[in-house]
């Protein structure tokens, strides 16, 4: 596998500082944007006297969280659990099915149209049905997120396993590699970039799925807080829950991206770091 090319500018300082320099360079623009946006937002609310129930100011949203953080954190934990559990379960099941599809093209051809069709059903339509089948607890929300995480991984795993370099596979044949060796040392590593694309999609789907499932029916979780706050016009709390769900999504995504960088340092998409 080709090794990452070090950019010439960093070569001189390619020392213990290069990692922190890279991170700092990546982090300060969004941080500054955030601060500027928050200040501008707060100023706009004050200047135009916008009512709190139309658009709360950042200070109101922060207070809605800070005055009573423990219940909100509890709800966030529930939503996070629903998202992660469904993500792991769905991705695993999807990966298994995708592998079956890659090795048995006839099965793939038989099932793919239905898999693709099922993948297009919007979660708002599927969630009520899943809740009727799986009941009213966390189980039904995990079922929704599993359902959503299943298809992207099945499709991406299949595509990934089919996308290996044929020339390199010839080398494996020549070296008399057996089936498992071909799978674990050649096809699976080649599939990983596709798998990570699928995993990153699943992060988004599972967070959205958890929230939407909670909209449909729940008594816990950030989606539940959003619905309850909306109905009682407690808008700062609604926004606080929204911000927390966005943060969950961002952190989860960053985690998968970091795992990807560790697992695939050889991949060309990671070779242009500053």
């Amino acid at each position, binding site marked *: 596998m080709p090794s990452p090319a070090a950019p010439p500018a960093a070569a001189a300082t390619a020392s213990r500082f290069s990692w922190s320099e890279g991170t700092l360079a990546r982090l300060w623009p969004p941080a500054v944007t955030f601060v500027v946006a928050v200040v501008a937002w707060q100023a706009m609310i004050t200047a135009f006297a916008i009512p709190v*129930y*139309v658009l709360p100011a950042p200070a109101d949203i922060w207070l809605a969280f800070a005055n009573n953080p423990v219940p909100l954190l509890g709800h966030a934990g529930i939503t996070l659990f629903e998202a992660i559990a469904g993500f792991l379960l769905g991705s695993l099941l999807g990966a298994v099915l995708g592998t079956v599809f890659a090795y048995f093209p006839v099965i793939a051809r038989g099932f793919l149209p239905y898999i693709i069709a099922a993948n297009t059903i919007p979660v708002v339509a599927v969630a009520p049905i899943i809740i*009727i089948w799986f009941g*009213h607890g966390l189980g039904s929300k995990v079922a929704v997120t599993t359902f959503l995480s299943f298809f992207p991984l099945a499709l991406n795993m299949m595509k990934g396993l089919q996308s290996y370099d044929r020339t390199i596979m010839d080398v494996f044949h020549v070296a008399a590699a057996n089936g498992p060796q071909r799978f674990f040392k050649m096809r699976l590593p080649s599939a990983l970039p596709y798998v990570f694309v699928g995993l990153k999609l699943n992060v*988004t789907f599972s*967070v*959205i799925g958890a929230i939407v499932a909670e909209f449909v029916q729940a008594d816990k979780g950030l989606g539940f807080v959003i619905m*309850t706050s909306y109905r*009682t*016009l407690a808008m700062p709390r609604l926004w606080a829950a929204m911000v927390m769900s966005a943060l969950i999504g961002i952190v989860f995504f960053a985690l998968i991206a970091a795992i990807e960088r560790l697992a695939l340092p050889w991949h060309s998409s990671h070779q242009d770091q500053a």
Partner: protein
Amino acid sequence: MTKLLTSLIAGTALALSLTPAAAETLRLEWVMQGQFAGPILALEKGYYKDAGVDVELLPAGPDIKPSVTVATGADTFGIGHPNQVISARANGAPLVMISQYGQKSATTYVARKETGITSIKDMPGHSVGLWFGGDEQEFLAMLSRAGIDQSQVQIVSQGYDIISWLNKDYEVMQVTLYNELPQVYRQGFKKEDLVFLDPAEEESIVSGGLFTTEDEITNNPKAVQAVVDATLRGWKEAIADPKAAAEIVVKYNSELKLDEQIDQIKAMGELFCAGPTLKGEFGKSELKNYEVAEKILIDAKLIDKKIDLAKAFTNEFWDKAPAEYKTIDCK
């Protein structure tokens, strides 16, 4: 992600409510159905126009709350309940109830006789399905008044259907008198097979009132009076002849079935025929309903301080409405 979802919902709500050419919009509490036969009939027969106002009726759904759309200015009038007006006012939105049609709680709680439950006192060790997000407070208040701790009862957050109760996922189910209860009967249950846990007066939140904002009352009192008068007139006719009213209602929503809507309108009549309505004062708001609602909200920590209840409703427009619209058929 969720920001996109919420802005899509808000955008849809705004789009739905910004399309009217009408000067005033009245946001119903749910889809067009018999529950709103009064305003629908009034619109169809031109009573709003006769009274001098141009009104558009807009349906709601699970994600659209009239209290929110009226507070944000997207709609002029809305259908709602005292607890919603009180919550709104506690959160800074100056909503005011201008007429109150329902004088009983819209919800009751049914169980199969075989569960052995005969009254609220039997609830420990049993299960109940409630609509969370505010509507659960009535039953929780009932438990609290009966001295039962919530931890002794299995409380399940239910969806907007009776399927889970039919599947026996829980024993007691919160139902509206005009929607889910008729559905239960249509599944073959008879009154004799069921047990009803009805909220007492001190625990019920009345439903089905008409509200607007303080601004609208100050700037447009003629329109407010017209809407109050015409809606009373529409309801009086709808209750007098539910079948004719249902025939009008089904024209506004092709998903509806005529006989179900007749049942729904009759159920609305039952909701109205209590309190002031029985004294020929249909449509009047009463302070005691607000005191009950506020106490429930405070006990549940949904609001953290009391508000000036006298400002939450007004009978000034109802007082001036024609007297003949204030008497309806109560059997």
